[in-house]
């Protein structure tokens, strides 16, 4: 089974500062990678996904993530955060050997301060 590690449970940052949320996964076999965002008392929403091709993927609201196969990482970045980015972010992996299962990290709470 896959395991997904999000090293930081909480990340405080000031508005307009850059941020990086880290994600590492366990397997070196082919995987699909996802980042989800969760606002309080809501379900998870897809932020971006990596399936194949370019290792850098972007979302519509300025986030980007880079797939690094050698380091088995998929870190999420944003060059300038807004108050509205305050939420919990989850990294997830879908294993192509058993794509019925999605494995999630424990989440990182991003707290953007004014």
């Amino acid at each position, binding site marked *: 089974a896959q395991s997904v590690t999000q090293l930081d449970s909480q990340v405080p940052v000031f508005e307009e500062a850059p941020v990086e949320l880290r994600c590492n996964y366990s397997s070196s076999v082919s995987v699909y990678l996802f980042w989800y965002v969760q606002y309080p008392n809501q379900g998870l929403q897809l932020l971006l996904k990596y399936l194949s091709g370019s290792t850098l993927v972007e979302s519509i609201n300025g986030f980007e993530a880079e797939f690094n196969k050698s380091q088995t990482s998929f870190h999420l970045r944003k060059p300038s955060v807004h108050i509205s980015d305050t939420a919990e972010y989850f990294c997830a992996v879908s294993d*192509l050997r058993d794509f019925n299962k999605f494995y999630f990290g424990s989440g990182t709470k991003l707290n953007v301060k004014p």
Partner: protein
Amino acid sequence: SQTIHQWPATLVQPVGSPLSLECTVEGTSNPNLYWYRQAAGRGLQLLFYSVGIGQISSEVPQNLSASRPQDRQFILSSKKLLLSDSGFYLCAWIEWGGADSPLHFGNGTRLTVT
């Protein structure tokens, strides 16, 4: 367009009482369906998934059970709730056969067992 409905949004139940949470998906056929639990400060734990009517895979042995009586209906049940069953329960779906499809989540049910 596809939508997912989950209810109730919040629920307070005494220890030992039964549980029934319902999830329905509209606008798609033969989806894979999932139940996740999110406990405070922890990530998402996959409880059950289903690839078709009457087909249930359990990921974690516990006093919960799941059923799929119809193609787009997924039910999470318990005969006797425990305090440890408290948490945020999320239903999700992906298109059948969609290895590269992301999970789509409902808005969740906040269950408090007292």
